[in-house]
């Protein structure tokens, strides 16, 4: 007799500390989130705590998260399109590290970066686009042997730019919900995370909530990243604080402004880093330091997503 057996649910859950431990010095990372939305802030802080070095980060646009990584000298190279702390100013630590010559940037446009991730995900070596033509983004480069190339389309003769696809060692994405198998739901905008997650050789998904797989399977059309792509899953509530997560919480601009003001000087940054990152033992202790009262004020006031 053969009975019907339910397939066991694979469990990809690991802790934030374990996840960060997997990232070796010198690794290349796709960095998820877009601007203020869903940056993997807790992952950035843990990379600092574990004293990682010499990472290369690929992203479209990131803000305080990559500034922290630059301040702590975790990252040495970026390939990206944008960084700033929107509404406040230029990212302070990055300015200093550039002046010191300890970090380097290769500049692309947002569409170029998003297509580079799509190309990596599709398993093709490059992608064509109609941006960057006629500019210094084509004429000037820093460390890549080849950054981009203009060709005439073999079919139409039209000029197009080719940009190299990216297959980073890890893709790091912070999402709203994931099940233990690694099926991911993202509310609100997806930025370039749909393509970026599929480009990584290994994919680590951090999420506000771990949900039952039945929750995912009752609404499969809501899955932004199916488990097939995902290597590890990390439960990480408030993992983008002090930035925002759609439907979950708003940004804490008071904290961001304090960060910005303090990081204008190296001493101020060192003080921030010690107080909020290196002297706390992990993400939960960081949240305790921020305090439940402050966090609850930021909770989304439904039906508004913020």
């Amino acid at each position, binding site marked *: 007799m053969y009975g019907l057996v339910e397939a066991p649910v694979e469990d990809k859950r690991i802790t934030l500390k374990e996840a960060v431990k997997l990232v070796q010095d010198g690794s290349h990372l796709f960095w998820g989130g*877009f*601007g*203020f*939305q869903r940056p993997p802030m807790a992952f950035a802080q843990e990379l600092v705590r574990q004293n990682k070095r010499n990472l290369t980060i690929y992203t*479209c*646009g990131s*803000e305080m998260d990559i500034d922290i990584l630059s301040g702590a000298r975790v990252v040495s190279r970026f390939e*990206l*399109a*944008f*960084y*700033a702390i*929107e*509404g406040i100013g*230029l990212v302070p630590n*990055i*300015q200093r590290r*550039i002046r010191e010559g300890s970090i380097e*940037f290769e*500049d*692309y*446009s*947002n*569409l*170029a970066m*998003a*297509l580079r991730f*799509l190309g990596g995900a599709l398993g093709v070596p490059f992608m064509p*686009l*109609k*941006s*960057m*033509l*006629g*500019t*210094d*983004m084509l*004429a*000037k480069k820093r460390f890549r042997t080849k950054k981009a190339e*203009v060709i005439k389309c073999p079919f139409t003769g039209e*000029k*197009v730019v080719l940009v190299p696809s990216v297959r980073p060692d890890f893709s790091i994405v912070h999402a709203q919900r994931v099940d233990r198998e690694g099926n991911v739901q993202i*509310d*609100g*905008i*997806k*930025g*370039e*995370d*749909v*393509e970026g997650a599929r480009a990584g050789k290994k994919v680590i998904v951090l999420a506000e909530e771990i949900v039952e797989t039945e929750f995912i399977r009752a609404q499969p059309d809501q899955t932004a990243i199916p488990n097939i792509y995902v290597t590890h899953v990390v439960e990480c509530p408030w993992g983008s604080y002090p930035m*925002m997560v*759609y*439907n979950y919480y708003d*940004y804490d*601009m008071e904290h961001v402004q304090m960060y910005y003001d303090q990081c204008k000087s190296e001493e101020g940054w060192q003080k921030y880093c010690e107080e909020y990152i290196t002297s706390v033992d992990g993400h939960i202790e960081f949240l305790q330091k921020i305090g439940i009262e402050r966090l609850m004020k930021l909770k*989304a006031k439904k039906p*508004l*997503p*913020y």
Partner: protein
Amino acid sequence: MSKKYAKPEEFNTLELMAVCGSKQIKNGEVVFIGTGLPLIAAMLAKKTHAPRAKIVYEAGFIDSNAKEIALSIADSRLGYRASGAIGLIETLGLMLQGGHVDLGFVGAAQIDEYGNINTTYIGSFEKPTVRLPGSGGGNDIVSSAKRIVVIMTHEKRKMVKKLDYLTSPGFLDGPGAREKAGLSGGGPSLVVTNLCQMDFDPGTKRMRLATIHPGISVQQVLENTGFDLVVPKNVPTTEFPTYEELALLRAIDPTGIYIPREKT
């Protein structure tokens, strides 16, 4: 009902600039905007002459009807009554590069006489003094939208003969250059500053004074411009905001996040 225009002492320069930007948005158009004054301009346009304008933010919010001021183009506030929340391949790829975007708003740290824009480096590429935010979606928008409006402050160090770095293409080095480079969008159509509005001479593609803000002289504009601006014989004064527009602007940005209330 006829329009009632405010008097110059009843509005500030940022309000005037926001109204100028708003007037560039036509009803029903698909418009790419960022944060800052363009956001206010778009919100104003939707409340006045262009209720059916579809406002798109490159991070993925489509046809947004935000009721609160957003600080980031990825701000959840922009999701309010949006028709879509997708991603960059959708907005910058399918929608923009696919040819569906009528108008884009961008800022500039430097601009030259052909409307080429720098948002990346100040100083030399080898040893920059300031590293600016970079292209973001700016280059994509300026490359592919049918029209571009630039909003920026008018200073000699920003209106330059030669850019420190060319991030986004205006008319490059003159007539026909965009087409030769393979660019599909229409290029810049208007530059709105705190002193004036400038368009581009159709023959030479060089920047040309179009209207001048109240209380500003042509001489002042020229003194603050680092290249040879085309100045026509007659330069009209910029149309003043109406009382209705001013009241709406103050309702849109009640706490003065982008338009501080004091006279500037």
